[in-house]
């Protein structure tokens, strides 16, 4: 028996002689690697050439793998190769996916941006539908809105305001930079006007909007 497992002349042991121990270690290594289930020592011996000692070889192999990325571990009466427990995190891969904000979320965000500070009830009144808790949570999580002061009205509802993060993301210096309805219309974003005969009121409406809700919330103004 030799101490040089890699020496080629030892790979061809004389007929009927047991392979060298390093060679047996190689064999067990290959068997454990390729096997779909843990392998018992009996099975190793059955598969290796006559005279090989699987029990000894697998213990040596186990020592060789100590501290490595994979380990030779006993599983009941059998043996298997397993990933080192501290490297389990390598078996998952994070992928980030960028999705467009949902319609509900972007509308809610737009209302807060244009009307801040703004309570949930006010958002619902403007959107005409209930605002799901998830929608606000999502915007809070994105750090595009935050909770502002409570409104001094019955129930003291919380208000929402947009954040610096929001301004950075949308490239705005402050929320007042957002174009008003007139500008939106001029930009073609409000093309579909209804056939409203009372169009004379349009001008007033826009003026109202910029101040909407402000009356109840004077303390927010600087």
């Amino acid at each position, binding site marked *: 028996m030799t101490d040089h497992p890699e020496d080629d002349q030892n790979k061809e042991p004389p007929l009927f002689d047991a392979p060298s121990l390093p060679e047996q270690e190689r064999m067990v290594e290959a068997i454990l690697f390729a096997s*779909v289930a843990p392998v018992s020592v009996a099975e190793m011996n059955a598969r290796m050439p006559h005279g090989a000692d699987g029990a000894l070889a697998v213990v040596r192999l186990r020592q060789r793998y100590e501290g490595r990325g994979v380990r030779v571990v006993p599983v009941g009466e059998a043996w298997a190769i397993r990933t080192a427990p501290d490297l389990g995190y390598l078996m998952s891969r994070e992928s980030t996916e*960028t*999705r*467009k*904000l949902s319609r509900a979320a*972007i509308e809610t965000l737009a209302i807060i941006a244009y009307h801040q500070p703004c309570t949930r009830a006010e958002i619902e009144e403007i959107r005409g539908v209930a605002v799901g808790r998830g929608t606000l949570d999502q915007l809070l999580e994105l750090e595009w809105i935050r909770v502002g002061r409570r409104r001094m009205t019955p129930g003291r509802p919380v208000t929402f305001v947009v954040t610096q993060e929001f301004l950075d993301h949308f490239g705005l210096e402050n929320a007042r930079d957002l174009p008003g309805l007139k500008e939106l219309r001029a930009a073609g974003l*409000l093309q579909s006007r209804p056939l409203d005969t009372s169009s004379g009121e349009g001008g007033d409406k826009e003026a109202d909007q910029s101040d909407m809700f402000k009356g109840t919330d004077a303390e927010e103004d600087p």
Partner: protein
Amino acid sequence: MSSRAMAEGPTVSAEVAQRIAAETLIVDVEGFEGPLDLLLTLARSQKVDLRHISILALARQYLEFVEKARAFRIELAADYLVMAAWLAYLKSRLLLPPDPTEDGPSGEELAAQLAFQLERLEAMRDVAARLMARDQKGRDFFVRGVPERLERVRKVTYTASLMDLMQAYARIRTRDEFRPFVMDRDRVMTMEEALERMRGLIGFAGSWTDLASYMPEGWDSDPARRRSATASHFAASLELVKAGKILIRQGETFAPIEIKRRDD
């Protein structure tokens, strides 16, 4: 030039060997993968390097083979016959002195091309065999028996552009301007409201009274409110008539509608 020199003299024994080979070939003509395959097999019987093969002799071998196949009434596929015709032509080009008026490749060039094709086919067969003789996955070497599942953790980030934001706002405000389907509560009086009012007032209507006088205060200046109140009070009156509480009458078209308590 060597091909023509070699064409003259295959030895007798070689010729006999060829014949024997050809006869055994006929038996399994099905086994050939086309005329080029057959030609390559015939060429090997010349027992020379393919580079030094006699194309003339090969053409003769092939044509003999085709003749024999016919004699044995073996059906040959069309491409074998096409090859035979081409080889007969090539043979004539190689044997006759070149015709200076004729364009295109010379007989030697055609022969060289055929020899090249045979050599290339043989080379491909050779490397194919070497390829298949390599250690193969699942036969000589093996992959991991218990691979671990790679978990895909998907992290989602959301984004929106300023345009999205403005469009969303515009959408909401535009929706506001489309009010026709929304009941404007402060301009509408429902029949239930009118009925409620009239039930309280009807007790005082002992004589015929204009329905218009039952209009609530403040509902007569705004045309929209007046229309709604008139309609709801008229409908409420009809309900009260139906219930047997009042009488209703109208002198002529567009005359005032009058109501009176019904005293039984």
